[in-house]
């Protein structure tokens, strides 16, 4: 018989306001096995834990139930306290009477009643708990960073500087990401490339960093400390070792009609290309979809002009398999598709552009060599209109409910840069709210309005109507004057909402990392563990977790790196002892469990068993504790009830059901 102690936490008034904690403690005393119950202001505090430890030692408790917040919060705290008192940490159960009870129920009587039932269930369970011992698993001292934008580069640099090997996997032909497409950065107006390219070079030159560009993660196996990842290196059709990066192939390529991804389709590139001049590695890629040689078999100009003989049309995709201890996701973002936003005439007029396209137009290496001109006729615009929140803060299904966070600031930046370089251009901004929380952000916005005379109008735009003469008529509303207004514009710039890169879904699935309704990766705790995924060993860096600007991304990248380093620095990890266990006497050797196990943790062995005095050889299941992750799929599949999950056994769960239904 167990000797159980029940400890009810008030959590200040968080629990005590809607749950009568004294009554819960009293009711617990009536339950079988309970020899001690207590309530305290803050059980998780040092003094609270001391009470638990004292009770365990004085009353010789063999199991405890803590009625407090979610086990996801403090289960570890109380397990450690139990361990300090000499009790096996797995003899601790938590009754979640805060998140699942006091916080959602208003009525004291109702809350108390439910808290008693939840406590009863936990007591019923702990009565059947058995001491469990963690195993150990090794840690591969190498990290994988998925995505080679500023987030990925910074994370990789920080991990590498700490002395660990890092691989960056980037799907495009060069690292650099979105930041390499940006012309200037707010609020300092630094040149984006000037601050990014030194980092790219540093990453490429770092002896601990390996960069796989034009590559994708294909398969992920294993678990924290021991991931096995297949990386597909797509065929570049250029030998990376031979290529000198002279660029002659790109010049001579006869097919120059492919829209440039890097310039957001504003101009064309050749079929063999590097995305931009400072690309790393400076080795081009042959776009097989558009290359004449691959389409018709007749061309081969690039191979003829290449002095180094680096062009290799026969190159095949290559799969590299590596082991990693930690994985950092830094997949970044893209702007949303504007197909459903017809009112802004994005598809009808080339002079309606997104802000990212404007970045390329403003950039000296961009399609217009940095001159502000209309895409349609190359004329300099006189009137420009910026429309904010295109798809952001939009609760209809076509848009995104969240704020994209960076648009207010980059629009102020664009407006300021345009007014600075072209003082004759009138700039009007339609906005819902101007959001400038950040260091020197509001000052920056005010400068745009006060010093540069940017015309901010609070209100939304209903329609952008292209006129026969190529002008754009913007119909909006001025909320402060409460009137409809019409503004003539030569160019309209849409502050398009950002969304996680489309690759993030499949990557999250491979890593079994959870994702929210907007496809942003979920963090382990929104406040206290913002750069960790709930999946152990997976960390989050940059916009894949939520919209953020460059400094925030860099800060988060560093945070993700230190979390990964904290993991890599360990020699051994304690494994979860809640693993499956087969009862040899009940097992009939059918293999059903091995078939459903996602980790291949179950094998069969011929073993002599002693079945009530009858000794015989039988084929029985055996679980590898290092591989078993404790999902429990096998326990339900087993036709004879031989397979059970330690810590969540059939008897324990049935006891909980019984306690709730009593």
């Amino acid at each position, binding site marked *: 018989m167990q000797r159980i102690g029940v400890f009810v936490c008030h959590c200040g008034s968080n629990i005590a306001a809607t749950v009568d904690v004294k009554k819960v403690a009293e009711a617990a005393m009536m339950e079988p096995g309970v020899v001690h119950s207590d309530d305290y202001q803050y059980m998780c505090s040092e003094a609270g834990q001391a009470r638990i430890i004292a009770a365990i030692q004085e009353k010789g408790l063999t199991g405890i139930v803590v009625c407090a917040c979610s086990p996801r919060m403090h289960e570890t705290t109380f397990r450690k306290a139990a361990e300090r008192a000499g009790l096996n940490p797995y003899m601790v159960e938590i009754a979640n009477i805060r998140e699942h009870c006091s916080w959602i*129920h208003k009525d004291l009587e109702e809350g108390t009643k439910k808290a008693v039932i939840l406590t009863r269930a936990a007591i019923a369970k702990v009565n059947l708990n058995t001491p469990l011992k963690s195993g150990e698993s090794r840690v591969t001292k190498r990290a994988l960073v998925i995505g080679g934008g500023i987030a990925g580069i910074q994370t990789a640099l920080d991990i590498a500087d700490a002395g660990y090997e890092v691989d960056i996997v980037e799907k495009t032909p060069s690292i650099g990401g979105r930041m390499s497409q940006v012309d200037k950065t707010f609020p300092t107006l630094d040149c984006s490339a000037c601050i990014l390219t030194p980092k790219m070079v540093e990453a490429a030159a770092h002896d601990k960093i390996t960069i796989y560009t034009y590559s994708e993660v294909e398969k992920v196996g294993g678990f924290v400390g021991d991931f096995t990842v297949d990386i597909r290196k797509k065929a570049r059709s250029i030998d990376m070792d031979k290529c000198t990066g002279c660029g002659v192939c790109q010049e001579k390529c006869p097919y120059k009609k492919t829209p440039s991804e890097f310039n957001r389709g504003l101009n064309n590139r050749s079929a063999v290309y590097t995305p931009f001049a400072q690309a790393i590695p400076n080795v081009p890629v042959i776009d097989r979809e558009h290359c004449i040689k691959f389409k018709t078999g007749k061309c081969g100009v690039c191979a003829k002009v290449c002095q180094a003989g680096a062009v290799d049309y026969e190159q095949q995709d290559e799969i590299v398999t590596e082991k990693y201890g930690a994985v950092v996701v830094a997949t970044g973002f893209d702007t949303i598709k504007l197909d459903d936003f017809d009112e802004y005439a994005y598809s009808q007029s080339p002079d309606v552009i997104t802000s990212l396209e404007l970045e390329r137009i403003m950039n000296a290496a961009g399609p217009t060599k940095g001159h502000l001109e209309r895409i349609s006729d190359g004329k300099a615009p006189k009137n420009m209109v910026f429309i904010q929140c295109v798809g952001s803060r939009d609760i209809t299904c076509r848009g995104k409910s969240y704020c994209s966070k960076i648009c207010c600031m980059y629009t102020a930046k664009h407006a300021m840069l345009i007014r600075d370089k072209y003082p004759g251009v009138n700039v009007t901004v339609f906005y819902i709210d101007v959001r400038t929380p950040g260091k020197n952000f509001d000052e920056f916005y005010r400068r745009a309005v006060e010093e540069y005379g940017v015309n901010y109008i609070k209100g939304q735009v209903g329609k952008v109507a292209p006129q026969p003469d190529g002008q754009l008529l913007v119909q909006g509303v001025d909320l402060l004057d409460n009137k409809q207004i019409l503004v003539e514009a030569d160019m309209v710039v849409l502050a398009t909402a950002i969304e996680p890169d489309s690759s993030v879904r499949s990557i999250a699935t491979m890593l079994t990392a959870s994702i929210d309704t907007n496809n942003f990766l979920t963090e382990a705790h929104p406040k206290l563990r913002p750069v960790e995924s709930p999946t152990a060993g997976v960390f989050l860096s940059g916009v894949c977790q939520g919209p953020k600007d460059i400094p925030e991304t860099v800060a988060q990248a560093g945070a993700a790196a230190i979390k990964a380093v904290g993991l890599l620095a360990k020699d051994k990890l304690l494994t979860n002892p809640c693993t499956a266990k087969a009862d040899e006497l009940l097992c009939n050797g059918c293999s059903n469990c091995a078939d459903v196990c996602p980790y291949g943790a179950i094998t069969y062995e011929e073993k002599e068993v002693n079945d009530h005095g009858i000794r015989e050889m039988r084929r029985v299941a055996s679980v590898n504790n290092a591989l078993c992750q404790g999902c429990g*799929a096998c326990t339900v599949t087993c036709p004879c009830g031989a397979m059970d999950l330690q810590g969540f056994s059939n008897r324990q769960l*049935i006891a909980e*059901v019984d306690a709730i239904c009593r």
Partner: protein
Amino acid sequence: MSIEAKEEFRPNIVAFCCNWCSYAGADLAGSSRLAYPADVKIIRVPCSCRVNPMFILRAFEKGADGVIMCGCHPGDCHYSTGNYYARRRMTLLFSMLDYIGVEQGRTRVEWVSAAEGVKFSATMNEFVRKVRSLGKNVRLEDLRCRN
């Protein structure tokens, strides 16, 4: 003047929530103070595939009026494929239960992610409403369990 309302039927509902998505979703519903009736009591399981049909039968046998099982969205399971097993098992079990007279409205599978506190709360509110409208479950109750 008021007419004494007949005491409202309060069902007993057991919710199985997987540790990685739905239990966290329920935590989020809690920390966001998204109320749902106290009739719902949650049992934590590592994965929806840990829920043995036996547990659900047992709950009905012991007098539960509804059982809901929540897991990660298909494709998002922490253990890759657990929720697919659960989905198949529950489809079979629920149709069998329906056949023997435990209405479909009393059983439910719902996918709730860790970020979906709103969905968790809304699901529970709706499910409780449904079970309340069906009234007490007597079909499977083991009468020997009655006091």
